[in-house]
């Protein structure tokens, strides 16, 4: 089935009933309408060859539909059943990216609805057995709606009897299904230059440039981090084997731990012997809720980029994923609702648990030790340095930098997400938000790869992962990795023996 429109230019009187009916039917905002009637005048009185041609235009329902390849969310698509090019207003985020791709200027940004408007041949009305609004009301009856594949239908008859043809040029032919009868008028309309070359928007061009980064660099970084982690493990094991061999040879008794603070701390925080209480339940929930959200949002977000120019790993994955959840609309709805819930929980809860923005900044403040740590840690990991690392606070400098990075990126992601969700600002702003959103996510994903490697791959760091589950951390591990924090904990516990809050605040 190929639904299409035929227009007899010889009959049109330019009364614009079609445009008004369309605007009423579809509630197009100021300056927006899904169709139009332009007037072209040629000739002179002197030569007695004056002519006026009305050009009743609408979506040409191109079979190559360049607009569908450049829609970041996949809101624009060709209905597989009817061939009609549609915009799903519930999926469109109003970035306006498709507008410049249309050779006929058939797409408009609706300033009220904040989405892109275009003719869908009145699909829901046609589905109920009606004619499109413009056809229904055309006083001149110059519009014929029908199925081009129905050889016995009125549209095919119109093509045969009137020689109707699409408006195409030698340069631009995207196989439109909207066809025009009335040769003289059609030629004047074409001569007026109504068919424009397809132009890629700056968003699409930027996206195309950054696609390799998103496709290769981010997963590549992840793989590299994991591989690096595995290498560190291997080296640690071989070191241990070596050390154990040496120790066995020397049979020296192990040095006793200076376990000064342990009993106090254990008492204060209610943790078991040999363990420090590191993460409250709220923090652990926050962490895992955040992790789950990232997983879901990255998956759905990736699946949302379904148009050819935007899909990360081909158009198949998005289609498959959308199919799983019942279409793109539930997908974007899920993404948006979960995103809002995520932002609504993560931000306030984080600030609450951390005792306000000031404390957060305090925790991620980079000290002199941190700077030194940052320099020597890689050397140590590479086995090039044997001396002990500079002492670190609750979070080491790497964690701090990652946290800072995540704080900035989260703000950016939420901000740009809100711009897209609520269509804030002109289409250009939404288009920019798309880039910002995805760039921030890509950067965070690179960081997450390192984070996950550190926590889950590198064996030495596993207590940290465990602490995010149980809340407790092995005292030995803490003393080793966060001596400053451990020292401070001990200090505070001595100062405010009975006040457990002080410790928990520092959490």
């Amino acid at each position, binding site marked *: 089935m190929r639904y299409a429109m035929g227009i007899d230019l*010889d*009959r049109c*009187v*330019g*009364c*614009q*009933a*079609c*445009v*008004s*009916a369309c*605007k*009423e*039917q579809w*509630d197009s905002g100021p300056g927006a*309408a899904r169709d139009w009637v332009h007037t072209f*005048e040629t*000739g002179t*009185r002197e030569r007695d060859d*004056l*002519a*006026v041609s009305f050009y009743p235009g609408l979506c040409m329902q191109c079979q190559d539909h360049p607009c569908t390849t450049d829609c970041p969310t996949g809101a624009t698509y060709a209905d597989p059943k009817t061939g009609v090019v549609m915009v799903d*207003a*519930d*999926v*469109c985020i109003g970035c306006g990216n498709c507008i410049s791709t249309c050779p006929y200027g058939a797409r408009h940004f*609706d300033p*009220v*609805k*904040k*989405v892109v408007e275009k003719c869908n041949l*009145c*699909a*829901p009305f046609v589905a109920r057995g009606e004619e499109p*609004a413009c056809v*229904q*009301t*055309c*006083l*001149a*009856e*110059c519009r014929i709606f029908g199925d081009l594949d129905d050889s016995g239908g009125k549209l095919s008859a119109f093509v045969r009897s009137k020689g109707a043809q699409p408006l195409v040029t030698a340069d631009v032919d995207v196989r439109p299904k909207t066809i025009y009868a009335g040769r003289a008028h059609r030629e004047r309309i074409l001569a007026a230059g109504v068919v424009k070359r397809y132009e890629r928007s700056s968003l699409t061009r930027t996206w195309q440039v950054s696609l390799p980064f998103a496709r290769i660099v981010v997963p590549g970084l992840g793989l590299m981090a994991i591989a690096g982690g595995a290498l560190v493990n291997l080296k640690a094991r071989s070191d241990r084997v070596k050390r154990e061999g040496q120790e066995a040879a020397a049979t020296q008794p192990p040095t006793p731990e200076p376990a000064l603070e342990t009993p106090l701390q254990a008492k204060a925080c209610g943790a078991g012997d040999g363990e420090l209480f590191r993460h409250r339940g709220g923090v652990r929930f926050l962490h895992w809720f955040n992790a789950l959200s990232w997983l879901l949002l990255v998956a759905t977000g990736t699946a949302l980029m379904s148009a050819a120019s935007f899909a990360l790993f081909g158009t198949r994955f998005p289609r498959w994923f959308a199919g799983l959840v019942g279409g793109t*609309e539930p997908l*974007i*709805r899920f*993404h*948006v609702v979960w995103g*809002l819930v995520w*932002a*609504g929980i993560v*931000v306030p809860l984080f600030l609450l648990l951390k005792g306000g923005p000031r404390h957060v900044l305090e925790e991620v403040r980079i000290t002199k030790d941190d700077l030194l740590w940052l320099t020597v840690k890689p050397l140590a990991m590479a086995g090039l340095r044997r001396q002990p690392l500079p002492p670190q606070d609750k979070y080491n400098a790497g964690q701090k930098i990652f946290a800072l990075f995540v704080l900035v990126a989260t703000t950016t992601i*939420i*901000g740009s997400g*809100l*711009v*897209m*969700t*609520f*269509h*804030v600002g002109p289409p250009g702003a939404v288009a920019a938000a798309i880039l910002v959103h995805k760039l921030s996510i890509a950067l965070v994903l690179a960081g997450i790869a390192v984070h996950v490697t550190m926590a889950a791959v590198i064996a030495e760091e596993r207590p940290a992962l465990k602490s995010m589950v149980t809340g407790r951390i092995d005292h030995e591990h803490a003393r080793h990795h966060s001596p400053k924090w451990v020292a401070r904990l001990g200090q505070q516990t001595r100062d405010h023996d009975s006040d457990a809050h002080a410790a928990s605040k520092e959490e």
Partner: protein
Amino acid sequence: MAEESNRIARRTFLKVAATGAIAGAVSAPATAQAFGLTRDQHGLPPEREVPTFCELCFWNCGVVARVRKNRVLSLQGHPDYPNARGKLCGRGQAGAGFVTDEDRLKYPMIRVGARGEGKFRRAGWGEAYKLIADGFRKIKEKHGAKALALFYHGTGGPLLRTMMVAYGSPNYAGPAYSQCKGARNVGYYLTFGEKLPSPEPLDFDETRCMVLFGSHLGENAHNSQVQDFVKARARGASLVVLDPRFSTVAQKADLWLPVKPGSDTAVILAWLRLLVKEGTYDRRYVEERTIGFDALARHVEPCTPEWAAAQAGVPAKKIVAAYGLMVKAAPAVLVHPGRHTSWYGEADTHRARGQAILTALLGAWWRPGGTYRWERASVPAFPAPDFPDLPKDVDSEARRFRFAQEVTTNGIRDATRTGSPYPVKGWFVHGTNLIQSMPNARETVEAIRNLDFLAVCDVQPTEITQWADVLLPEDTYLERYDDLAIGSGKAPYVGIRQPVVASPHDTRPAWRIAKELATELGVGDWFGFSTFEEYLDTRLSGAGLSLAKLKLDGIKLVPRKTPLYLADGEKFRFHTPSGKIELYSKQLADAGFAPLPVHAAPPEEPPGMFRLLYGRSPLHTFGRTQNNPILSDLDGTNALWMNPMAARELGLAEGQPVMVANGGGEETGPMPLKVTERMPAGAVYMVHGFGHRSKALSRACGKGGSDSDLIDTYAVDPMSGTTGMRTQFVSVRDAAGRVA
């Protein structure tokens, strides 16, 4: 129109969501449509469909309104209405905008500032009625009821007329006669003895040749007539168009005669001469049905095609060629009488007579392909007492406009201005913006300043409403009952207007205003019904029709009683004094007018000036629709059309804002210039109805130019009383320094 209720829910949701998401980060745009949280609400099926008829213009197209809750989703043409046939023009489609328009008049208001200042206070209906009744009573006591006048335009008008006549005034008038169709109606009535109905009884179905004079068909979207025209053309009927401007129909014509403005009659006379000389007129029809042929033959003797060519500035061979098309198609020739024909004054009735005589010589009157015999459904009036004996109206008292079919608006305005033949001191103005709908707004304002009392009833805050002492807000046509549409045409019918949605404001329908004000004035006896359904039911029962069924169907087609055409040999006495089609009009001769049409060339434009022509946009009706949300968006301003050579001489360029002045100190604009070969060198053109000045019309105020602001030198036709308005010369200048 907005899915208002859905939007509100969505907006609330948005705000909650946004607040929850991130405190104070973003405030959601109030009307953002879709972002994946809520479903797109468009394309939902209507909850109910209500038939009614349109009032965007007065073609009275049947409408089926699709409604959800109290909101119009869309309007569609009623399939059974002969003048709609399931279609509506661009204006009709946009009608629901009047319901939701925030600019509309929402409650009765009483003036608190100076007249014309537009300062009002809100009032109750009772207080407003009482104030009007007191004002009218004082005038009646001092000057007699004839010192009161009603101006009206629209379906609600006749009941207000009943009120006014019952109160004793003979002075009721509408611009639809004296600023529009008057001369045409008189010319045809003098010739055929018939008052032309609307739609014009033109037989497009059978015609083989159409002849149009300055027609705006297509630019004026008279629904069924546009449909008929296109179909006839597609069927192969030939088309002759006379128009100085290359109009939409000229573009479709086989022969376009770009006549000099005001020279149509010369071409008609040449055609009459050709028909007579070459014996190509319908001999039998003329002998059987007409009188005065010999006088006509003598009269047109000097009117050769060459003479007409010199008068009209078109080649004689084109005039002859057009004649050839007519003769070839006769008698199936459709000579359109036109509609807005108040162009040059006395010449207009002559031109209409010429068109009528041309129709008669071609044997096309009441013959297939020419015109058909129209018939109106017969529905009795609501029973009411006899009206009181009325004094003479202003025109009769002044012994002017001998052949006028209605009292003239200009006659009443003159009486109000000058006190002659007697003073008019109180106006009730319903549904017509006299500041725009009459030429020379200065005279209208002068008249208003002479009034003791001015009551205005309208839907929108037009210019005249700003001058009112008491301002009554009317329901829009989608919110009210009105009197029946009694349609004439090939298929007579009765149609109903009924409420589609409820008015969101303290507005009332015209029938109720008429009844309640009449009661206040002590003439409530003429409104012996308590609800309008009772009124309609009484009338319909009298015709054997059911109100309940009509409310459901919207229209009842009534079988014809008369044949569609005048059969050859059928005896018929025309309603003229002679009982025949009067080619020669003794009536005119007796009254001291030329009994046969004469061509009088209008004066040439002075150097440096242009004749101002005006016309229609298919998306606007007069000055009534410029503020409509959809129509203002689709067609927000008019442009001044000017010939490229003239523009070059003035150093003006396409799109440039220009001011248009009338030489008498009035100026309009700025409006964009449209440089086009479609205009002749000596004339400029604009669509009528723009250039609103009422600030209360937020979308339309200050957009474009107003022809009625410029037309001071109108010419009154002494026969019909209509005001010729293509008589104004204007100058054009660059609007620099006054750019909008």
